[in-house]
């Protein structure tokens, strides 16, 4: 079921390296224009969402699978580190690391049976998994504080507490650039081509020795681990978490960010996260019209730019460059 996607991505090194440099530059220079703590906060949230989206993009855009329950992994990451730190007194770096490892293991266990499914059945399975996680988190209030949420201690490494918008901005910024670097390396490697091959044609991929189950699982586990990592960081940054972080709506937001920005493009994932994290903030000005506008923006963008923002703009740019010769 190969679907001709956007034109083949440009050759190995040039464009991804350029976009990575652009991202690093943006992260480094942004503080010069951010006026206050609130804008820093938005930037940090963008960064955290972007980390999830880059991982999710590996699964959706490259390996060609779908997950409508990724907020479940995010939520498990957040609540895992919170519970270990608060109820069991673990030091926060340990609670974070252990949580990410545990969620990766869980993703491995769930992934094996459900990745045998395709298309909408896979969508439903991941959706169901996400909802189950969200409901369990909201219901087991003895551990999780229930629908009202629970507070989370800040991240403290060797006695130094990570607090304040500026510090978190740099931490998240560096982690984001590192994540994109790792993702781009992966895509431009034999394993990355194996994942893209699966997306292109599972039959042909198996005919060249690629084991579909093993690779889909690897993409799934990696993206789940990244989501959990971002979730745990979010918990320590915000100091407070609620079950909404694991909700179906959040899962849909994440997928929408990836598709909106442009699948099969790590930069697209970052742009999508940036656009759809800041847009609702901008729209709160319109208060009651917020949902209407958000829905309208989503629909119009997808109707007129079906491949997503970055690939469409990229093509337009290339066409303009071609014409000016």
């Amino acid at each position: 079921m190969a679907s001709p996607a956007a034109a083949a991505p440009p050759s190995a090194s040039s464009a991804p390296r350029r976009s990575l440099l652009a991202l690093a530059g943006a992260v480094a220079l942004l503080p010069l224009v951010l006026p206050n703590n609130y804008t820093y906060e938005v930037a940090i949230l963008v960064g955290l969402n972007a980390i999830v989206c880059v991982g999710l993009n590996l699964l959706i855009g490259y390996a060609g699978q779908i997950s409508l329950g990724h907020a479940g992994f995010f939520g498990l990451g957040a609540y895992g580190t919170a519970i270990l730190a608060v109820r069991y007194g673990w030091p926060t770096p340990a609670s974070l690391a252990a949580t990410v490892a545990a969620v990766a293991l869980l993703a491995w266990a769930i992934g094996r049976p459900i990745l045998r499914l395709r298309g909408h059945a896979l969508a439903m399975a991941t959706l169901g998994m996400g909802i189950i996680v969200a409901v369990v988190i909201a219901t087991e209030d003895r551990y999780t504080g229930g629908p009202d949420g629970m507070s989370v201690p800040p991240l403290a490494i060797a006695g130094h507490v990570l607090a304040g918008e500026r510090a978190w901005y740099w931490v998240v910024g560096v982690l984001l650039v590192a994540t994109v670097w790792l993702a781009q390396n992966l895509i431009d490697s034999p394993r990355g081509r194996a994942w893209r091959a699966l997306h292109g044609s599972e039959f042909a991929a198996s005919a060249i020795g690629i084991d579909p189950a093993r690779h889909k699982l690897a993409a799934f586990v990696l993206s789940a681990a990244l989501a959990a990592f971002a979730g745990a960081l979010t918990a320590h940054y915000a100091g407070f978490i609620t079950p909404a972080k694991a909700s179906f709506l959040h899962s849909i937001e994440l997928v929408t960010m990836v598709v909106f920005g442009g699948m099969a493009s790590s930069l697209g994932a970052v742009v999508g996260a940036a656009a759809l994290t800041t847009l609702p903030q901008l729209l709160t000005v319109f208060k009651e019209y917020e949902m209407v506008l958000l829905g309208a923006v989503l629909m119009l963008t997808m109707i007129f730019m079906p491949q997503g923002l970055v690939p469409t703009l990229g093509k337009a740019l290339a066409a303009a460059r071609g014409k000016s010769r």
Partner: protein
Amino acid sequence: MSAQLVQFLLSGLTVGAIYALVALGFAIIYNASHVINFAQGEFVMIGGMAAASFVEAGLPLPLAALLAVGGAMLVGLALEKLAVEPARGAPVVTLIIITIGASILLRGLASLVWDKKIHALPAFSGETPLKLGGATLLPQTLWVLGATVLTVALLWWFFNRTLTGKAILAVSHNQLAAQLMGISVRRVLLVSFGLSAALGALAGVLIAPISFTSWDIGVMLGLKGFAAAILGGMGSGPGAIAGGLALGLIESLGAGYVSSAYKDVFAFVIILAALIFLPDGLAGRRRATERV
């Protein structure tokens, strides 16, 4: 059979009938276009909310219900014409995002046109409970079940005995061949969306007297209807009905005997189990082996 069991079975069948109608809506649109319409739940919401507001404005219930279903149908047609048709060649994931955007838009509009409060619709034939073998039965339950049976019968007649219905089935089996036979796929898509919207709105009107209605009931209902459609084998009409009823019963029995706090979870646990052990759904519909 204990009275309590009868009670759970009846409420399970009632909500199952609603899930079945929503699932049918998913199945009809999926068959025509291979799109999962995430806005399906919002049609249910529109049906209930519109009917409630018409009644509150003074219209008699039957007229309010009719206008609500008709209005929802128009919304469905508009959705197809303005959002789905322009995006025809797009990848399926993009189309799904479009319907998700539509559901957000519709929910936003609902909170503006109406409000965020909970509304009730008067029961069709009064509130006096009936007695059935030790269990009490709301008359509305009979309306729900009866209307669903009637609707399913009408749909069967429509798909098997009318030209438009058969055209829709043809498109669902093989779009290219249907086009070569002169069937307008665009018209089929339009009719499918209109029909699914009407089904959703009907479900909303039927259930509003029992479980009330508000601007955001569409989300969970849509998800469970989707789950029911998958359980029955996506694209299968009888499967959607069986899936809906099964889901309703499981939920009711689970909430009653196991844990009411986890009521919403039962449906999804069963779905997950079914998908893992029965990947083709209850109807066991085999996907045609892909030719390589």
